[in-house]
């Protein structure tokens, strides 16, 4: 496994990025240079310097410390959303695929309804209806994300359930539930896992987007999208205030995508072309 990854330099870069990000998120408290929410209006909009490596924002808060804290927020969002969407989608998809017939039709038409609306627009309307907060963004994204997994899993299940070992499992008297959870789901997880890694990046990006338009993180939360939004109109007067949060989003999403791509290459060589 390691040999396979190390042969792909992009994957290696992705892994390093992920390592740095996860490390930052876990040890955020020890990496801070200042209290990320400490307002010091008299040192507002300082350009990057030794005391403030990424400068300060309009309220004199240290951007470096805020980005460090923001890492934790972004990773947490990614983790929770995937943790909601992944099992939910997997179970629903597996049931649909295994049961077939009417149940399959109903479940898949419902997922189609979800998929027919652009993900971000749907998430926006759900988040707006629930009221602006990070928790609601997480719920909204979770609701939007599961149909993708459901569809993916269903496809795999349709292939697997015709195989002989399922027949065998049924022949020795296993119940449907046991067959689904013990024999089917574990055998079609690989593509979904890869998808989840890729999704991590997209989820973080979407959450930042929702915060950017004011539906997500509320002040003083150092969420990257919110930081970007509050500084974007002074890009010309103080480039650092919006640039660094933007970079943080860019690098994080890139990291997850690179790793996801490489995992796909390794586990699904057929898809390589």
């Amino acid at each position, binding site marked *: 496994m390691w040999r396979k990854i190390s042969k792909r330099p992009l994957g290696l870069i992705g892994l390093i990025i992920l390592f740095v990000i996860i490390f930052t998120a876990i040890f955020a408290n020890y990496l801070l240079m200042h209290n990320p929410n400490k*307002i010091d209006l008299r040192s507002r*909009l300082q350009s990057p310097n030794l005391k403030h490596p990424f400068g300060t924002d*309009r309220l*004199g808060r240290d951007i470096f410390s805020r980005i460090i804290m923001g890492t934790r927020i972004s990773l947490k969002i990614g983790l929770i959303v995937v943790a909601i969407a992944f099992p939910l989608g997997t179970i629903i998809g597996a049931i649909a695929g295994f049961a077939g017939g009417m149940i399959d039709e109903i479940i898949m038409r419902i997922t189609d309804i979800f998929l027919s609306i652009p993900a971000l627009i749907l998430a926006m309307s759900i988040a707006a209806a629930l009221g*602006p907060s990070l928790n609601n963004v997480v719920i909204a994204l979770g609701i939007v994300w599961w149909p993708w997994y459901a569809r993916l899993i269903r496809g795999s299940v349709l292939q697997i359930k015709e195989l002989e070992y399922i027949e065998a499992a049924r022949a020795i008297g296993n119940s449907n539930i046991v067959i689904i959870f013990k024999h089917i789901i574990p055998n079609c997880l690989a593509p979904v896992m890869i998808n989840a890694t890729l999704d991590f990046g997209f989820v973080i990006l979407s959450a930042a987007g929702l915060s950017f338009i004011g539906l997500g993180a509320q*002040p*003083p939360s150092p969420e990257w999208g919110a930081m970007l939004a*509050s500084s974007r109109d002074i890009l*010309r007067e*103080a480039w650092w205030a919006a640039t660094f949060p933007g970079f943080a989003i860019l690098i994080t999403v890139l990291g997850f995508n690179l790793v996801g791509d490489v995992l796909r290459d390794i586990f699904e060589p057929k898809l390589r072309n």
Partner: protein
Amino acid sequence: MKKFYLITIVLMITVFLSITVLAETDVKNPDKFIFATNEDIPTLDPAVSYENTGFRVMYVMYDRLLTYEGSSTEIKSMLATNWEISDDQKTYTFHLRKDAYFHDGTKVTADAVKYSFNRMLSIGKGPSGLFSGIIDGNSIEVIDDYTVRFKLLTVYPPFITMLGLNCASIVNPELVRAHEVDGDFGEAWLTENEAGSGSYIFDSWKRGDSLIMKVNDSYWGEKAKIEKAVIRFIAESSTQRMMLEKGEIDMAEAITREAREELRNTEGIEVAEVPGMAIHYVALNSSKSPLDNLQVRKAISHAVDFDAIIEGVYLNHSIRLNSPIPKGLFGHDEDVPYFKYDLKEAKAMLADAGYPDGFDLEFIVADFDTWTKVATVIQYQLSTIGIDVKISKYAWPTYLEKIMNGDHDLCMMGWSPDFADPDQNMYTFLHSDNFGSGWNFTFYENETINKKLEQARKTTDKKVREKLYSEISMIAYEEVPYLWVSQNNVSSAYRSWVKAYELNPMIYWYVPFNKIYKK
């Protein structure tokens, strides 16, 4: 050698060309004045509109009996040349000028005045509330074609200053009646049309893009100098700045304070700034615990460093505020103290009130940049005395609904007086009749204040009124239903070729389209 010459000549031409390009200060679009805003205009009906963006254009398309003009906050004659006020201060008689015509050529008469006011009262939307209890459908009497009389329901000294309000615009009765549908007083039609007699005529409007007005060549007063006045809707402030620098627009409304500083030093661009009367404040919801406790409210007022906010958020383009009446408005009293930043005192008061460890509050704000920043600073400063503030940002309509219901503990608000009298600010902010939908978001009830407010709006003696307003301001300081945050300068960035531009400290949305010329 020949090559060398050739190169030199080419170089010289290039240098010459680039110099001429740089030095180009020729007026762009000489026949147009282009104003950029980031706020949409919901309606052009003066009886319905309650938005600054709409006022700005209607103010030059319609005439009023009286008006505000240029940088003055004194009311001036417009359609009414002179007027008499009866001894009991209840009857106002106006004499109209005889040379005023609506844009379709019909005369502006006393009938039109009566129709316009009754139309506004009958439609009964937003701005008409300002006149409720002061005039009703039977108040206006047409004496002859050019004389109209208002009989007030009550003595109300500010009445005369209200005739310069945008909603007091005189509409063309025949034209409006012709477009009436199901008894709507032509509201549907007038939303996107105009029926005035002003110095500009409505030309065209592409919603979300641009609104164009053309000059009225047969205007009774001084004719506007620019052929076309254009309002362009440009959402991003950075885009507005760029277009202003390129000269594609002549004036930009939404320029950040940071950018304004830089534009001040840019050649070809002027930044004008005068002290204004628009104020920002925080309402404390006194109907809820623990803000119903006076000691708690006082503690909060001492825990916020307003000087730092003026410096760091408003970048010193605002001044401190001590009461609902801003400096420059009649009734302002400089002897009313400003809140003093004193953390020790604040902590002691909080402990005294029984909350030594603080408590939680919800601060609701509309998603405006400056308001959010102020709220974030207050959130941080209150955290230093143990009060945990949660900020919730909402879009304007949701926000308004929430605070009208009293869902908030704290909420941020902005306000500018519509006419030159303190009654509007005072009565709105502090009278218990105005709780919620009347824009008093404190739910703070004080019988003494109520009585003094009622007395002040009926008193004609200026000295007595002044004293009453000082006393009310003082009680408001001691009882802390509000945190007064700032009184803001009016500012605008525009091309140097725009001449005769004036800012008005009170009606800060005002743009003298009819006076501006380009050179």
